[in-house]
């Protein structure tokens, strides 16, 4: 027995690492090498097209700038309102706190195309708020810009809703880990609650704020499903990749995708290095110089604001949660009822959900097929990802190169999913190694890439702070060999993390749109179906499918809740 486990332990590390490199790392890096290897094609199509010259390059620059503007403004908005909300969730106790937490987390598990559609009808049609207020049309049109930043309003709030949880949850976790006694000390030393926040909590939670912002930014940059539905005339980088890929302008799409991968690396690496070595905090130590009288004014203002304006901090973030998350979902749910048998305005049954599902359009058939595909994909990719993630998490925690591995794992998390899909297709597909064709298997391969980091992060969260090493060492001295110890002690202790991670990965797979669009071939998944329905103007069917997706993810969320409670 000891011999076999010795052999196993010698094999398992290289095997895990190899699978990781082949299934996760390679696809997330391949795009760069593709662009590099086929540079002449890229050059020809992007910079020196005989007909349009470098028009594509100018397009790319324009799209990138627009994407950045959108993502940066969404993140800025998240930070301004997300940090106070994170503070409330971390420090205050109030009835309904659990519900609020769930609501904030919802966009993490919600299929984005369904959510995008919900937001769309809420703001731009009479079925939404406009109708409630008795207006003849929606409150805003699809392309109404937000002042100053000049980004379409609907697009902006979709991105805010989808990135909000990254900031709130990361900062909340960070604040929870900060000992409350520092704040109490500061208050008893005479600082108002706002001054305390600025001087104590803000500097201490800066690493959390930073990583939350990076995740949010990356998410916004890579968002495809909802963006395709609400973008209207504007195009973001990840949507552009999907469009070009479907028009077979592969070199252009690859070039854009490669740029995004590069950008992801450039953002993640310095941040990781800074946070890892605690340099951010050291930087802060040299506090910026503020003139004394200005400082006094600031402190006075903080004292005033702490007393009088405190409710703003409580009310505004709540209002944002209601507006960007709750209302769209409510609107979709109510619309399903309204549209059930017929279009409420024209009265025609062709505009009803029943007709579109079971009538001549027969969307029910494609829906069942898509459900089957989606669930098979989610199950298989989650299972394979789990098999890689468990040993990988142990390697990350226990080997000296673990930190490097963990940083590498951040890359698939922040690469725009459409780049990832393109990368997988080019690597495994007919134009690359030609191992498999687009279709369900390629979807599975793609979903594994982003599932592994999700599960690993969950496992690591459960692992750290549970004192596993101590329990395992105890088990060893009690007579268990290395394998027995892991099996009987460590795995049961991190079970919660494994289950949570798997459910997150399952829902993520269920809702993924950007990458799936590129690699799916003819096997359509549910979120893709929603996009197709919207583009085919089958609004009632889209309504029903969105609700169906939302319900699926709500069930998942409830399961996570039960599992993590224990």
């Amino acid at each position, binding site marked *: 027995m000891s011999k076999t486990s010795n052999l196993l332990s010698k094999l398992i590390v290289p095997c895990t690492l190899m699978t990781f490199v082949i299934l996760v790392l390679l696809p997330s890096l391949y795009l760069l090498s593709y662009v590099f290897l086929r540079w002449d094609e890229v050059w020809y199509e992007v910079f020196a097209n005989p007909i349009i010259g470098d028009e594509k390059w100018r397009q790319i620059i324009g799209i990138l700038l627009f994407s950045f503007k959108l993502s940066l403004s969404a993140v800025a908005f998240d930070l301004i309102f997300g940090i106070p909300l994170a503070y409330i969730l971390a420090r205050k106790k109030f009835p309904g706190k659990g519900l609020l937490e769930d609501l904030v987390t919802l966009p993490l598990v919600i299929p984005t195309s369904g959510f995008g559609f919900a937001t769309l009808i809420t703001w731009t049609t009479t079925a939404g708020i406009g109708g409630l207020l008795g207006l003849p049309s929606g409150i805003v049109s699809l392309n109404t810009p937000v002042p100053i930043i000049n980004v379409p309003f609907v697009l902006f709030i979709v991105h805010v809703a989808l990135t909000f949880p990254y900031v709130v949850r990361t900062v909340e976790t960070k604040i929870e880990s900060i000992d409350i006694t520092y704040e109490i000390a500061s208050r008893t030393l005479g600082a108002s609650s706002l001054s305390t926040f600025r001087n104590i909590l803000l500097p201490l939670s800066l690493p959390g704020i930073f990583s939350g912002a990076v995740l949010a930014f990356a998410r916004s940059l890579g968002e495809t499903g909802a963006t395709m539905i609400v973008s209207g005339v504007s195009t973001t980088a990840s949507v552009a990749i999907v469009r070009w890929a479907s028009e077979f302008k592969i070199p252009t799409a690859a070039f854009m995708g490669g740029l995004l991968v590069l950008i992801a690396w450039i953002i993640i690496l310095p941040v990781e290095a800074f946070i890892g070595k605690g340099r951010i905090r050291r930087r802060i130590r040299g506090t910026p110089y503020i003139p004394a009288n200005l400082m006094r004014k600031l402190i006075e203002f903080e004292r005033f604001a702490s007393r009088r304006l405190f409710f703003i901090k409580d009310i505004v973030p709540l209002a944002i949660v209601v507006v960007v998350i709750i209302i769209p979902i409510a609107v979709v749910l109510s619309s399903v009822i309204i549209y059930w048998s017929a279009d409420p305005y024209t009265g025609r049954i062709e505009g009803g959900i029943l007709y579109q599902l079971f009538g001549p359009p027969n969307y029910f058939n494609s829906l069942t097929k898509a459900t089957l595909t989606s669930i098979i994909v989610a199950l298989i990719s989650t299972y394979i990802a789990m098999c890689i993630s468990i040993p990988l998490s142990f390697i990350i925690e226990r080997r000296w190169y673990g930190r490097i591995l963990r940083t590498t794992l951040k890359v698939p998390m922040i690469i725009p999913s459409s780049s990832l899909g393109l990368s997988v297709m080019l690597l495994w597909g007919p134009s690359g190694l030609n191992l498999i064709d687009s279709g369900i298997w390629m979807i599975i391969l793609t979903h594994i890439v982003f599932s592994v980091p999700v599960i690993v992060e969950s496992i690591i969260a459960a692992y750290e702070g549970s004192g596993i090493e*101590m329990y395992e060492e105890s088990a060893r001295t009690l007579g*268990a060999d290395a394998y027995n110890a892991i099996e*009987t002690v460590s795995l049961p202790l991190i079970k919660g993390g494994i289950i949570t991670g798997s459910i997150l990965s399952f829902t993520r797979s269920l809702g993924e749109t950007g990458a799936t669009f590129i690699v799916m071939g003819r096997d359509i998944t549910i979120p893709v179906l929603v996009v197709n329905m919207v583009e085919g103007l089958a609004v009632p069917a889209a309504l029903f499918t969105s609700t169906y997706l939302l319900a699926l993810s709500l069930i998942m969320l409830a399961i996570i809740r039960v599992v993590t409670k224990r």
Partner: protein
Amino acid sequence: MANVRLINVTKRFGRILALDRINLSVMDGEYLCILGPTGAGKTTLLRIIAGLLEPDEGEVYIDGKRVNSVPPEKRSAVYMFQNFALFPHMTVWQNVSFGPVVKEWSPERIRNVTSEILEMVRLGERRDAYPHELSGGMQQRVALARAIAAGAKILLLDEPFGALDARLRVNLRTQLRSLVKEQGLTAIHVTHDQEEALMVADRIVILREGRIEQIGSPQEIYTNPKSIFVMSFVGGANFFDGVISHIDRLGSTVDLRGGLRIRAHSITGRVGDRVVIAIRRENVHLRKSRMRGFNNLIGEITDVMFVGGSIEYVVRLENGMSIMSRVLLEGKGRVLKRGDVVIVSFHPRDCHVFPYPERGLLKEIEAI
């Protein structure tokens, strides 16, 4: 049943020398305490014996067999962590039967052994409880039962009472010691609490900065400390810096600053050497009138502190130095007050003389 021998064991963590050529043997059935301040290398030593760490140099023998490359599960040495590390997802029964189960004994034997041992530690009724439902004392008994069931011959205890409150700690100490002795186990117990070590140990090893400073029975360590550090760490004392002015057959005379002169029986060094004189607090007596003999100093009481059954006085001597005296409270004994002038006396036999340490006196006696 089991003895442990370490020969020249050395361990480095990067540039830090955690253990420097440790030589130590632990006898069968002995209760050994390793005592030292934080960072002395106590835990490292314990983990090396357990097999959780490998020494960089040197050899570890258990029962005369070299075990350097033997994995922890084959050493019969059970490691008990500060909070006992009872597996939180297993019941008392599952915890105690853990060793037999992973060793794949027959179900019947597992059942018999486990229930027998649970009865022995009086936990038969709580067999289905989870660790977090038990009191600290019960948890300790479960941990011990688990170790015994796993066939432990050596018990490695890493600050076993660290997480508990002071009162409980004192009770559990004696309970643990008697259980260990009953079972005939060899115990190696790491602690930074000198009181704990003095109370439970058959022998104490004083560890400092990776080196063994002294090994001896609790009484030896207390009455005959080999260094300023040991004296300060175990029990504490008054320390004075001085110069030897005279040596004769009966001892030496040390001059302190301000013209004070102390007579000691021990002889260390030569005339003119800088030395440190150390006197335990309980050996410093306070009287109203001068006594015959040496070491009668005049002082004024500057502080009075109650320490349970005794009183500690701080007395300022003529040369401005302070000396502490601990006096047992007896009956309705008279308590001196602040400002009282007293004669401070101590027997030359109780004055320890040490050479002046290279790194300065403070470095040796700094609060640890």
